[in-house]
């Protein structure tokens, strides 16, 4: 069903569960290296595990203190209260993504609860999203389904398990029910996940790379028929791994549910999987509120009692809130509302800030990130930040400002950097893309072009400067575009008078 029509008939009600992998050096309950640690590179399967991660008999989990500190900081940044005493619980289920047959999570005593996040929409309106809780838990291993036509669970002959990710520290942030978003629901969803990402990045507790699964969003959506005052049945959409797909998945699911309800059907309470490539969700496991995980307090772990001193220490160390930071950066960069909104809407604030920190001018950093890089990212349906590093963008801008590259050449260099050919100066050398700044070579080409077009030469000498365009074009062509057009123009006018 058409999105506007769906909104006419129903009010969307949202809820999000965002999982954040913490970038600690080790796992939540074992001293195995954390594959989500800052700067970690992918390791061979089952090489980052200890007996604890495999749940071997006799092994005992011990809580990673740094993960607790990170979790409290995140809770505070979300405006949450921190529990005086918090404990872990076993969430029991049979599935081989964890070898223990349970996940250590938190149930009735989460580390943080009752917070809120200010989220800004693209038109500048802000929206408050209430946080119910943020709790600590461990990530599960990675399953690869083998056999069957599609490589998916259905039809698979067997599954291969890599437990490297098992035990990675996670914080799960759960919102309260979100109503009143109306037609902005898809955008609000994206803005919320983006706000969480900004907070996590500002805290420096996770690399927060969605494409690597550092930040994952499960979106609960239901539709309430207008005027009914009753809530609809919800679905939980998983596998939403980019900001762009958060927005698309919500929009899709609203339209899908509306079509079913309008035709007199009923929504099944289930998990649904988002497919990035086809832009649809498909049915997963039926899920009910009665799912019985038989939670009970984890007998192998002791309560976490942070104490006021630690909480206040971490509160005092909190970085500037992202919303305040935005205001400060806008002023420092001297951007207009429109320019700044352009950066925010493209979710490129961090990239632009890091590029400026590398020495680039704010205007150029904005121009390249929201322009060419965003264009290529959009074409390939990936996040701009995954294509090129702020360091390389800054180097590219420096090459433009020193006159070594024109914008046109810089786009070719960027293409090379994105293709993995190395830093901009490597690409310049390897592809031979430097601007011809040797006036001698330019003058030779100009003289040749002027000789070939004597009528143009006459016109220029008669003061018809715009006629020079034809000669400039010929020279640029002769230089295979590797010349600064402004300099060529200067030289053409100079030579024409001789």
């Amino acid at each position: 069903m058409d999105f506007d029509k769906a909104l006419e008939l129903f009010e969307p009600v949202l809820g999000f569960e965002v999982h954040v992998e913490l970038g600690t050096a080790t796992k939540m309950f074992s001293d195995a290296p954390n594959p989500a640690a800052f700067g970690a590179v992918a390791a061979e399967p089952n090489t980052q595990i200890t007996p604890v991660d495999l749940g071997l008999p006799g092994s005992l989990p011990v809580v990673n203190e740094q993960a607790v500190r990170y979790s409290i900081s995140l809770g505070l940044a979300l405006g949450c209260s921190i529990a005086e005493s918090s404990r872990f619980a076993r969430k029991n289920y049979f599935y081989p993504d964890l070898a223990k047959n349970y996940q250590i999570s938190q149930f009735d005593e989460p580390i943080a609860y009752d917070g809120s996040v200010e989220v800004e929409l693209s038109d500048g309106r802000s929206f408050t999203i209430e946080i119910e809780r943020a709790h600590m838990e461990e990530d599960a291993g990675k399953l690869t389904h083998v056999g069957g036509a599609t490589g998916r669970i259905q039809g698979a002959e067997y599954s291969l398990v890599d437990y490297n990710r098992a035990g990675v520290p996670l914080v799960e942030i759960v919102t309260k029910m979100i109503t009143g978003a109306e037609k902005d629901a898809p955008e609000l969803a994206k803005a919320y996940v983006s706000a969480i990402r900004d907070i996590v990045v500002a805290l420096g507790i996770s690399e927060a790379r969605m494409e690597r699964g550092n930040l994952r969003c499960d979106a609960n959506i239901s539709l309430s028929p207008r005027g009914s005052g009753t809530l609809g049945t919800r679905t939980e959409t998983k596998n939403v791994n980019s900001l762009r797909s958060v927005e698309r998945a919500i929009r899709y699911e609203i339209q899908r549910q509306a079509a079913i309800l309008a035709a007199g059907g009923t929504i099944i309470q289930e998990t649904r999987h988002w497919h990035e490539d086809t832009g649809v969700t498909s049915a997963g496991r039926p899920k009910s509120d009665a799912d019985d995980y038989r939670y009970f307090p984890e007998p192998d772990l002791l309560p976490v009692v942070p104490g006021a001193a630690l909480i206040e220490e971490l509160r005092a160390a909190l970085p500037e809130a992202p919303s305040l930071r935005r205001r400060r950066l806008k002023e420092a960069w001297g951007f207009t509302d429109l320019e700044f909104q352009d950066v925010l809407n493209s979710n490129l604030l961090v990239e632009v800030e890091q590029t400026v920190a590398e020495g680039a001018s704010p205007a150029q950093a904005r121009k390249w990130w929201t322009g060419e890089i965003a264009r290529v990212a959009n074409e390939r349906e990936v996040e701009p930040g995954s294509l090129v590093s702020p360091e390389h963008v800054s180097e590219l801008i420096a090459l433009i400002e020193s006159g070594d590259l024109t914008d046109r050449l810089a786009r070719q260099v960027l293409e090379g950097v994105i293709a993995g050919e190395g830093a901009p100066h490597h690409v310049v050398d390897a592809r031979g893309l430097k601007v011809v700044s040797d006036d001698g070579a330019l003058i030779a080409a100009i003289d040749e072009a002027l000789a070939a077009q004597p009528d143009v030469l006459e016109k220029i000498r008669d003061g018809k400067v715009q006629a020079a365009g034809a000669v400039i074009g010929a020279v640029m062509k002769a230089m295979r575009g590797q010349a600064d057009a402004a300099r060529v123009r200067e030289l053409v006018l100079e030579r024409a008078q001789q």
Partner: protein
Amino acid sequence: MSEITPDVVRHLAGLARIALTESEVASLTGELGSIVDNIAKVSEVATPDVEGTSHPIPLQNVFRADIPGVTLTTEQALAGAPDHDGSRFRVTAILGEEQ
């Protein structure tokens, strides 16, 4: 009375991938049943004003420093696996999904 029947034991054993003989099923049905009955007895006396005990000794805040230690080698990790492909555990395909 306990809800543990031989069928429940067989189901749990299947989920846990543990092969049980019929005599093991029979003895476990009795043993698990008496455990469940004993727990039920505790539930009867545990009124809501009694706080849950997660640990017999009143300790708290036992932490580990965030410093990587020794990991298992792949060979060690897979040593107890019923089946593997040389680097990953191989398990029967299960209809379901990651939690």
